[in-house]
């Protein structure tokens, strides 16, 4: 039973259009539970000599019987490019992006907008429900 966590990368590609390096990550962790994403980011940062802030990993699935997990990883050239190219949900996982409105608010606004016609739709603000 090995105690170390080994990370191997496959299908490595430098995506110049999105200013990042993307790869498939294989984590070998026999005898342990699935490794957390922050730990994997740390190890990748050491492998590729960057800071873990520009590394985004996702999609980890552990194979049957444990021991091996496969996921994807992207290493951006800078945080600016990361904010530009990465989807909001993954940025939110790192705390770099916050959703302004909640889902409930959005749906309520939509329903309020349905009652109004034309350019007045744009003026429908939040919290305009008549309070009883």
């Amino acid at each position: 039973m090995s105690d170390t966590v080994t990370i191997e990368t496959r299908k490595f590609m430098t995506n110049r259009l999105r200013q990042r390096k993307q790869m498939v990550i294989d984590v070998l962790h026999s005898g342990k539970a699935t490794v957390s994403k922050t730990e994997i980011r740390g190890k990748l940062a050491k492998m590729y000599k960057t800071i873990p802030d520009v590394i985004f990993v996702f999609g980890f699935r552990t194979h049957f019987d444990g021991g091996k997990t496969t996921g994807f990883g992207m290493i951006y050239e800078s945080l600016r490019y990361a904010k530009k190219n990465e989807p909001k949900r993954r940025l939110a996982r790192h705390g770099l992006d916050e959703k302004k409105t909640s889902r409930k608010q959005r749906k309520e606004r939509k329903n309020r907008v349905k009652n109004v016609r034309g350019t007045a739709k744009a003026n429908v603000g939040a919290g305009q429900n008549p309070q009883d």
Partner: protein
Amino acid sequence: LLARGKGGDEVLESDLPRAVALLKNLQEQVMAVTAQIQALTKKVQARTYPTEKGLSLLEVKDQLLLMYLMDLSHLILDKASGGSLQGHAAVLRLVEIRTVLEKIRPLDQKLKYQIDKLVKTAVTGSLSENDPLRFKPHPSNMMSKLSSEDEEDEAEEGQSGAAGKKSANGAVKKYVPPRLVPVHYDETEAEREKKRLERAKRRALSSSVIRELKEQYSDAPEEIRDARHPHVTRQSQEDQHRINYEESMMVRLSVSKREKGRRKRANVMSSQLHSLTHFSDISALTGETPHLDEDQNPIKKRKKIPKKGRKKKGFRRRR
């Protein structure tokens, strides 16, 4: 000649009239052949058959055949005057020429079509109407002729037929798609049923039961194919397809309930010994009604209902 090789006076006497007749025949034929050859030689010397600009392969063949004839006649001469053919130098030469001729034969086969074509052209003087060579591509016709002075190319366009694209002088023509004539769909229920039966028959013919019967009763030797993997199933292939897609697109696909059920069933089936006693349906050949497998679903036609709002449009389940 024939009589000399055989012993015995009785044999001599019976063969003698035959030998005389044959000799006379031989004499006549030799005279005819000599006359023909003399005529040919005169023609060749008069240069009526110039071969400088001809096919070198045919020239080589001509020379080889002539040498063959010379060596053959040498041999016949020697044999007729009583010599033996054992270790005769001409025999070796003959063998060599024969080998070369046989090696030339496939080349000759390949050229046969073109030679025939050339000869026909030479004889009739022009290409026939439906000569497929007329439809060879004319790349010069595909360039747009911007200047209006290229009138002389019009004459060539008559030859191009269907293959060449005619471009108008000056403007580039808009692409018009070909109007295909719609054909009336005539398939009745009976025909559909027949087609279904045909397909089921074909499938049944390649089932394991029939294959084993064939092996048992046919005289052909038993074929052992190099098996890729005994346990490669449809499910494992589809899984592999899915994994390849996920890794190349770097996305995770969701697994529907149906897919989950299929996977679970595949795992269960392979771990048990069910498949030992399950044979495919050969009712198409025996004429009975199609029976249902106990554990698997009844064979029914799957209707393709397009799902609305499919998120991952790139991944298609392999059918």
